[in-house]
């Protein structure tokens, strides 16, 4: 069912939610708009194209405590559960799409990641359709679009001086009927559908330039291509692309102990780091930038679709396009591999 909500009511709702859970929203600090915990709606930036960091920070945080242990002769272990309820507001379609891709890895199959599962359950996702896609956005390349609701519990579309809203899950309907009671008004279905359609059809210029069709198959025979050698030379091996990417999910498990107290935690790791695949023996199966750069793009454009059925491990959010310091990004690789020269 489609509804509308006035901007003031939306702010009231967010303020209300911030009282009993962690409110995460786009906020501008020192010139950077990113998703971060905020205390109230007053800190939220409503005018942004996309956030520098993604929803991944809150569903699969950069470092996450898993368990505590005591080693004073006995051994006791206490699991740390990410129990705090969170609500993430202002998620763009590319991030909403990324959640579905991450779910396949961390929840699908035989094992599921308990911490990720808990956070997913505890987090309410409020999407916000894109009014002004940035010139680095290419979500349409993958079949998403500026109105794509993906994993959203509630999706919002700015419509003139109000927001069109749609609750898509039980969690979303509970929000509308619970804390949001009285703040939403029923919308004219036909007019609402027209608004949604307009967002879905919004122009994403960069997306038109990047055609991913069939790249998984082309890459089947591309592993040994000279291309990887050529483009990888300029990579400086930072973790920027993987850390800002909403779909990269490599991590590292570590124990730290001091004075009889210990902590097990995990942190993101990056396939672009030289020591990522370094083994205790000192051997490194991905010894040079060539193997590492190839891994990142093969994983996203070949291994993932082969393993998880179809979709690519990229949502066209454009973060790596905008933030890689050397301009080595997935949209360029796609173009290159398809024969449209992008990287020198």
């Amino acid at each position, binding site marked *: 069912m489609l509804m509308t909500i006035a901007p003031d009511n939306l702010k009231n709702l967010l303020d209300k939610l911030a009282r009993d859970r962690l409110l995460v929203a786009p906020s501008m*600090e*020192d*010139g*950077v708009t*990113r998703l971060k915990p905020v205390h109230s709606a007053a800190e939220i930036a409503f005018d942004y194209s996309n956030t*520098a*960091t993604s929803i991944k920070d809150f569903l699969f945080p*950069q*470092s996450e405590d898993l368990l505590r242990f005591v080693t004073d002769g006995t051994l006791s272990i206490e699991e740390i559960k990410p129990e705090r309820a969170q609500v993430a507001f202002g998620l763009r379609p590319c991030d909403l799409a990324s959640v579905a891709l991450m779910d396949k890895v961390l929840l699908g199959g035989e094992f599921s990641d308990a911490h990720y599962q808990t956070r997913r359950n505890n987090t309410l996702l409020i999407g916000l359709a894109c009014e002004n896609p940035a*010139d*680095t956005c290419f979500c349409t390349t993958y079949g998403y679009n500026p109105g794509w609701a993906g994993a959203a519990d509630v999706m919002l579309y700015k419509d003139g001086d109000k927001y069109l809203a749609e609750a898509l899950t039980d969690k979303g309907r509970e929000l509308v009927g619970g804390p949001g009671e009285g703040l939403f008004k029923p919308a004219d279905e036909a007019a609402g559908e027209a608004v949604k359609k307009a967002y879905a059809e919004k122009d994403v210029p960069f997306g038109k330039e990047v055609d991913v069709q069939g790249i998984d198959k082309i890459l089947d025979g591309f592993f040994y291509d000279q291309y990887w050698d*050529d483009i990888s*030379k*300029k990579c*400086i*091996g*930072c*973790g*920027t692309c993987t*850390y*800002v990417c909403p779909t990269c999910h490599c991590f*590292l498990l*570590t124990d*730290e102990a001091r004075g009889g107290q210990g902590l097990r*935690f995990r*942190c993101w790791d*990056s396939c672009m*780091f*030289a*020591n990522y695949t370094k083994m205790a023996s000192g051997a490194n199966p991905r010894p040079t*930038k060539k193997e590492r750069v190839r891994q990142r793009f093969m994983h996203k454009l070949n291994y993932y679709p082969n393993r998880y059925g179809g979709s690519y491990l990229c949502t066209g959010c454009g973060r790596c*396009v*905008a*933030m890689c*310091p*050397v*301009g*080595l*990004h997935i949209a*360029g690789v796609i173009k290159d591999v398809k024969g449209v020269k992008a*990287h*020198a």
Partner: protein
Amino acid sequence: MSAIFTDHQAALRDEVRKLLTDGTIKGFIGYARGRDSYHPAPAIVTRPDQVDGLILDQFCIFGLTKYLLDYIFEDGKMGIVAKGCDSLALQRLITDHRVSRDKVHVIGLPCAGVINAEKVAQLGLGNVQKVTDKGASFLVEGDKGSRELAKTEYLWDKCLWCEHHNPAVADSKLGPEVENVAMKPRDYSDIEAMENLPPAEKAAYWTRQFSRCIRCYACRNVCPACNCRECVFDIADPRWVGNTVKLSEQQMFHFTRAWHVAGRCVDCGECERVCPMELPLMKLQHKLQKDIVKLFGNPKPFEPSEVEVLGQFRATEDPEEFM
């Protein structure tokens, strides 16, 4: 009206083609078009057929010298293009005995200043077609409009106070040398303002900055002074600096990064420029720089010298505060 980088593009390509063909160099580190006309990207070419991808324009800021470390264990020479500031970075690597001078062929690029693309990209001029040097300003013509931009406002800060416009290390030069004068004096007023804050406010400021860091290490990887064979941040045992993003490790990372290059930083500003989270890293480097100037009477600590500021002392002249 003086020459701009683009005027030297053809000459650069010719020279690189020649050097690659006659075997003087096995590869060349230069620039190519990046994601748009404001962001040229580094490019490393090894074959003559790649040379036409090389570009030079007034947005070519990226300091390329750190790439040389990728080739130190290989035979043969690498070619590189270097502006004045880049040649300081190169001297850094040479002085630190990380790169040997005879394995680099440097094409020097006299430089009167590089346009700050981050500022210009916001002006809505579209795809840049042409840039003309008008003396005190640049005329930037794009397909959606053109603007004349005052250099004092639109150059990178480091270009405004640069006193190294002509490359100090070069095997050949593109064009004549440019006048070697700073457009304005080095300015530490932002550092002084920070020094004057009460401790609680300083701590709050840095906590906010350090908490935003994603520990991607782009700042380290681009820095010509961060050139240790094995970086302390990569050593897993003992783990001197933890890899979590809890505040203490963020503080330790930033303290260590800045401190490890104290007195060796060449003031290229690349760490701050590449940071995806826009941490004001030069506010750390400039604080150290300012104090070094004041305490040790070294007016230009950013010029590499055989003996570093913290690798020497003067028994009687150094300030004594610890009696």
